[in-house]
């Protein structure tokens, strides 16, 4: 994916661009709001990563508002040290699609960027999801592994649906908490891991044909191989 990073801190910039390149993405960089606005308006990006407090006259949020007003719908992830709930709401109201607070783990950032980039390419009319021999029918709410039907609780269904929609991507625990349980806080315990292992038991009766992998220091990934 082609990304734009608008960030004034050099160290963070180096850390993020290097990480993105290693993950196979290309990243342009602007260290102030004016250049950021210029790049975002003139080039096509899959995702924009936007710091909020930028040098110069344009801060991150007004930059986002300006882009949205000009009809630019590129997904934007706001990356900021302002962590209050109210600040998050402000960021999302201005037109941001996701909000990640500093300090952050790179795995978390990458997983969220993947999810944002995927969102634009996906159309909303999908009725079935498929990963290898795991099939999910969103209308009849049936899940099949091969020919065998798997019975899931409503929340387990939602968890699996989220994982399948993001198949091939790393999904972090925070992303699962926010999107599956709508919990925008850190429960401080490994409850998500327990849910995952329970789900794993149901969808993977034979452990050697595992689809749901644990990605160390990041989260989980559902993929065919």
């Amino acid at each position, binding site marked *: 994916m082609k990304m734009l990073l608008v960030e004034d801190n050099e160290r963070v910039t180096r850390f993020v661009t290097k990480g993105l390149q290693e993950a196979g993405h290309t990243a342009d960089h602007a260290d102030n709001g004016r250049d950021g606005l210029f790049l975002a308006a003139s080039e096509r990006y899959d995702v924009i990563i936007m710091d909020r407090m930028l040098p110069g006259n344009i801060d991150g949020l007004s930059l986002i508002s300006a882009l949205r007003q000009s009809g630019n719908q590129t997904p934007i992830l706001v990356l900021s040290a302002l962590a209050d*709930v109210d600040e998050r709401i402000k960021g999302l109201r201005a037109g941001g699609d996701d909000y990640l607070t500093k300090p952050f*783990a790179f795995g978390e950032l990458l997983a969220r960027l993947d999810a944002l980039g995927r969102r634009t390419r996906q159309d909303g009319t999908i009725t079935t999801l498929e990963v290898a021999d795991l099939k999910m029918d969103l209308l009849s709410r049936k899940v099949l592994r091969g020919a065998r039907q798997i019975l899931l609780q409503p*929340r387990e269904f939602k968890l699996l649906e989220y994982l399948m929609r993001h198949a091939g991507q790393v999904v972090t625990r925070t992303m699962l908490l926010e999107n599956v*349980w709508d919990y925008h*806080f850190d429960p*401080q*315990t490994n*409850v998500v891991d*327990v*849910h995952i292992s329970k789900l794993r038991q149901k969808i993977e009766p034979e452990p050697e044909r595992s689809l749901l992998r644990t990605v160390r220091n990041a989260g989980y990934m559902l993929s065919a191989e």
Partner: protein
Amino acid sequence: MALFMRSSATTLATGYVLLGILALVLFALPLGYAWRAADNDVRLQILGEDSQRLAEVFNRKGPAGLADFINERVGLQIAGERILLLTDAALRPLAGNVPAWPAGVPAKAGSYTTPIDLDHHPTMVTLVRTELPGGYNLLVGRDVARLVPVMTRFWYGLAAAIGVLLVSGVLGGILIRRALLSRVHSIGQTVTAIMHGELSHRLPTGTGSDELNTLSVTINRMLEQIEQLVHGVANVSNAIAHDLRTPLTELRSRLEELSLTRPPPAEAFAEVEAAVADVDRVISIFNALLRMAEIDTGMRRSGFVDVNLGELCAHAVEFYVPAAEVKDITLSYKDEAGSLHALGDQLLLAQAVNNLIDNALKYTPAGGRVTVTTVRPGADAAAMVVTDSGPGMTTAQQERATERFFRGDASRGTPGVGLGLSLVQAVARLHGGTLEFADLHPGLAATISFPSKA
């Protein structure tokens, strides 16, 4: 003097004195006017009747007879009090006690009030002029001077009343001001002392229930709160320093050792990962503290919405059931309120219940049970209770449980930073409620209760 004029007591007293004077004048003026008018009417009536009588004498006895009658009466009467004058058609005096026809009286029948020259003194008189047959004129009048001292006394009385009002008003103002100022001064001095950091000072309060006393009591309560908060902040700062020092010390020694010993890459990477975990722990403590500070400021109260507490608890229980099963604990939700709604912050209430469940699971041994219940303790009250079958808490522990960074002995070695229950308490307080513990022997009941209508 300038200070005196600026005092609110003085302003108030001046205002009341002026108002009093105005009321007095407004009362006296119409009264004086009515009295004068009535007096004049009566006098005119008497004069009219007098004229009538004299006219009858004229009718019976003719001009000469009336002249005699008048002269006889003038001789008997004290001059200056009653004026009698009979003239012919050319206004030449025929009889009476006035030497000539007064200049100010027009040649027409009627009553007049006019100054005339009486014994060489201009005197205010009321006159009634009657035209008699044959062109004769009769003037009957009365001196008004008799009324002047009464009127003067009336004005003097009014002035004296105003004077008394002024003096008593000024005196009262001074006294009130002195009493008020001395108390305001003492309040000011105490507040100044407090501003300089002597937080233990309190305003002097009496037993009375006047406004200043009530204000002082309220301010004292506020000071108590401030003192508690300041001490709380100091304690929390110490606790933070202590709790952050541990992972920071570990981190530091890890990094220092790494740079000194330069181990092979595999070992070095393991150490670096451990260092990242240390930093993550520091960050999570920071985030928890910031979140609590955010709640404590009460800023989030503006975003209160209708929250379905039953749904919220059921959701939280559902979230923790797998984790409870792993520990072989029965976790369940019991709805004793039936559709319990309250105004609140959905996210914070959810986090509070989650923290309580998390805490209960942490302390309950295998085979135990944890139950979440929604109850309605009163008409406009809501409560969420989390009971467990763990070891419970002693009274001393219950008191300390919500202190930041306090951790029960049983939780040593389990993950967590000891902020969970303080966050629950902060959330309860934000909703105008409380977090209470009760020892169930065995087990513990933690109750968040708050008014269901904000």
